């Protein structure tokens, strides 16, 4: 049950594949990307995930940084 999820970083627009094993929580995914719940929100189909919601292999999610810089 190994696999990757496709992650799009917003606002950068960069996409990357992240190893999620059999699935990781949104909170864990943010940690792996060097972020946390205060800094970014994970969206699937445009809807925010709760911290404990799982991102599974084959999922496409957006990780939206909420920090405004300007």
């Amino acid at each position, binding site marked *: 049950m190994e696999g990757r999820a496709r992650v799009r970083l*917003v*606002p950068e627009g960069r996409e990357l594949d992240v190893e999620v094993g059999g699935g990781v929580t949104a909170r864990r995914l943010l940690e792996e990307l060097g972020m*946390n*719940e*205060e*800094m970014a*929100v994970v969206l699937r189909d445009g*809807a*925010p995930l*709760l*911290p*404990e919601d799982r991102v599974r292999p084959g999922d496409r999610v957006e990780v*939206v940084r*909420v*920090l*405004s*810089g*300007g």
Partner: protein
Amino acid sequence: MAKCSVCQAPAVAYVRVQRRYLCRQHYLEYVEAKVERAIRRYGMVGRGQRVLAAVSGGKDSSTLLATLSRLSGRLGFELIGFYIHLGIYDYSEKSRRAAEELAAKLGVPLLALDLREVLGMGIPELAKTSRRPYCSVCGSVKRYVINAAAVELGADAVALGHNADDIAVYNMKSFLSQDLEAISKLGAKTDTVEGVAVGRIRPLYLVYEKESFLYSLLSGLPFLHEECPFVDRRQLEVELKEAVNRLEDKSPGIKMQMVTRLAKRIGDYPRPRGEVSRCPSCGLISSGGECSFCRITRRALGRPMGMEVRRRIRALAAEMGLLRASQSHS
């Protein structure tokens, strides 16, 4: 599947500080209640007053305009939006569209000033010809133009979209350089100086940046999620924002403590020295001599343009029927 702690509907967000889940509707109400609490606690707006909200097209201004428009009926104030087209290429075009759609959707009148129509140039050219850093020119210009609009419209307050994270970070940044005068300006509201400067209020003072983002997203309002092309990602503010959010992650609620305690002690910080005076060129606030906007435009264009900006705003306001009766002849 987690359920809303109020109504048992499926939850869309988790509020860590309160350890509870909320559905879309109750999340929106939770943020609106924070804005109302800030307005009441800090005495930001009174009945019958006119509030000019600065709208940039980003998430914070979207949350600002939406929450204020929802509260304006109950709290009895009048709301007008104000947008400045800064002439920053594609970014400004997109943000203008977002601001216009937002105001239309909320049914709030929006006054939009295109800097290029008054100055013949936008921020990039203005920064180049005046040989000053982009972000500092942009900051001065926005501050000036927003205040000028508020004066011309006879507004009682200017509402800015700074959220709790912004305030916490400016506070820390100023603290690091021991710029205590700068901290004195980080309260929830500043005073009006009759005739030259309209007081500013920060209705999102108690709203976290993430909450502001989720509010815009969940309410389905248009907002531009893109950064200004001139933003410098290495700047200290960005580093501090990350540091504050790591603290918040470890000790939920620490940001809220920072801003509420700051608001309590704001009067203990020294005000900037020097008298408040009138710019000899445009008549608005200056800290002695010509104001920074008139100086920048004088360097770039050979003459101070404050008066022109004021005239243009007045004309736009008259076209939209927004001039207050007491002002229409002066």
